[in-house]
């Protein structure tokens, strides 16, 4: 009998899962349906470049439906809720879709309204975010008018998508204002709830050093409780304040709202509790989760989703065949960090191993935790691979799902490096 796999979300995770499954199974074995509320697939790594005029918002968005292989049913509708008891998804248009296996790939959403004052007076005038195409485009217009003063980049709280992107924004802002010849007129400040520049100690130290080199002030352990757009102030819960002329705020993130409307599915932030190795949800054995929607302790990033894809599809296959699951996802994450002036840094890590210096994927490869032009080119070339390799579900030759250790230097871990 034909089994039905329903995938909620047609972004990075949903698309690559659908395409990989379609390659494993013929239409007579399984039906695949992907549900999404809109037809705009955003290449999210491109958002960072939009405010600086290095990319245009319309160029990084493509139709979702066009990214699927033949034999995948794409349903454009919002989701009301999932009913785990009856193995069905209720759509907002009133229809119901039953499933044998459900894959949750609905990512994370921005919830700026959860921070007092953030969407109040000054929002999209003095206070922006680059985490949406509209926000990034509006910020671009504001930056081009900005001719001096204090620009503050603020992460309200973790988790956020691509935790390095706000740092990259600081590095690119330094480059951008240098190019415009007004760097001395601009004070750049990075305000984070973390106790350092980044979550992982060695990378945190290295990135803090780079912020200092680029004259970006670092304010740590700042838990933003309120944004006063009119008065130009970030106000922390502990009473501290940081003033600004222009604020770039990364709002709080949650899982998709329908998760909260689905009894027994999500946690208090609407992320789905998930086994970090098998990617099976804790809610039900026939529900799997990929990408930002899961609460696994990995970064919310496209590279994680990409590396998860292989394990997830194999485990869906094993589940349908009645076999035990392959618990092999290791938390592998790989991020290019754009540092301005046509250079970038590369970091590579997993659940257990923090980002280390060395080379990737082996001793002959891209430099890790060090700035290079090669990494910058890698970051630029990745966009094409995203549309033509990653979404169709192809593997990269020489790049495996599991984190490589060959080119890394753990011994150098305790040595503070400054190139």
């Amino acid at each position, binding site marked *: 009998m034909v089994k039905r796999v329903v995938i909620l979300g047609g972004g990075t995770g949903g698309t690559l899962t659908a395409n990989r499954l379609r390659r494993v199974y013929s239409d007579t074995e399984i039906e695949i349906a992907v549900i999404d509320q809109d037809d705009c697939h955003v290449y999210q790594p491109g958002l960072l470049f939009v405010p600086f005029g290095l990319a245009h918002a319309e160029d990084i968005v493509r139709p979702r439906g066009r990214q699927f292989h033949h034999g995948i049913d794409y349903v454009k509708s919002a989701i009301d809720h999932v009913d785990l008891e009856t193995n069905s998804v209720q759509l907002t248009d009133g229809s119901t879709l039953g499933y044998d296996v459900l894959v949750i790939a609905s990512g994370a959403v921005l919830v700026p309204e959860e921070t007092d004052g953030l969407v109040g007076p000054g929002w999209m005038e003095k206070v922006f975010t680059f985490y949406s195409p509209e926000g990034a485009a509006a910020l671009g217009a504001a930056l081009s008018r900005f001719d001096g003063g204090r620009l503050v980049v603020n992460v309200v*709280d*973790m*988790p956020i998508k691509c935790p390095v992107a706000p740092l990259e924004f600081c590095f690119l802002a330094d480059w951008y204002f240098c190019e415009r010849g007004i760097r001395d007129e601009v004070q750049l400040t990075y305000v984070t*709830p*973390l106790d350092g520049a980044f979550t992982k100690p060695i990378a945190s130290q290295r990135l803090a050093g780079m912020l200092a080199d680029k004259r970006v002030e670092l304010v740590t352990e700042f*838990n933003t*409780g309120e944004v006063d757009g009119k008065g130009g102030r970030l106000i922390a819960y*502990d009473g501290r304040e940081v003033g600004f002329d222009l604020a770039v705020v990364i709002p709080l993130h949650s899982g998709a709202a329908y998760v909260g409307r689905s009894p027994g599915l999500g946690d*208090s932030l609407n992320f789905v509790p998930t086994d970090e190795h098998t990617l099976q949800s804790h809610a039900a054995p026939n529900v799997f989760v990929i990408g930002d929607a899961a609460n696994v302790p990995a970064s919310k990033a496209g590279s994680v989703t990409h590396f998860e894809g292989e394990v997830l599809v194999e485990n869906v296959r094993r589940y349908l065949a009645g076999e035990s699951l392959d618990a092999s996802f290791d938390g592998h994450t790989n991020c290019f960090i754009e540092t301005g002036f046509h250079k970038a840094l590369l970091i590579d890590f997993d659940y257990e191993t923090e980002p280390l210096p060395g080379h990737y994927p082996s001793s002959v490869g891209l430099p890790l935790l060090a700035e290079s032009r090669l990494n910058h080119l890698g970051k630029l070339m990745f966009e094409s691979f995203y549309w033509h390799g990653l979404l169709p579900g192809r593997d990269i030759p020489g790049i495996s799902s599991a984190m490589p250790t060959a080119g890394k230097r753990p011994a150098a871990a305790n040595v503070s490096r400054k190139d």
Partner: protein
Amino acid sequence: MSTSTIANIDVELNNEGFFVDPDQWTVDMVSELALREGIEELTDAHWQVIRFMRSEYLAKGTGPTVRVLGKTSGVSIKELYQLFPKGPAKVAAKIAGIPKPRGCI
């Protein structure tokens, strides 16, 4: 890692002052642990948060972050900061004898 004596019992704390082994914690240690964090008098609200942190950790394997505490503990984030001015999740986790909440990746 270092050994500290709290309520006459030796316990292992990590570099940041969190319990290495949450099983070493007893409820008798709470007032002394609170004092170390600069909290001289524990109100019912403090206790509510500390007990909640502990039970969430035992149920889920990680303590809640401030944002989750604000949504689920029955105490608002503003009040949490009044109770634990140096950071509710971190300080309450230390007093509740559990590891640092794993919110930030």
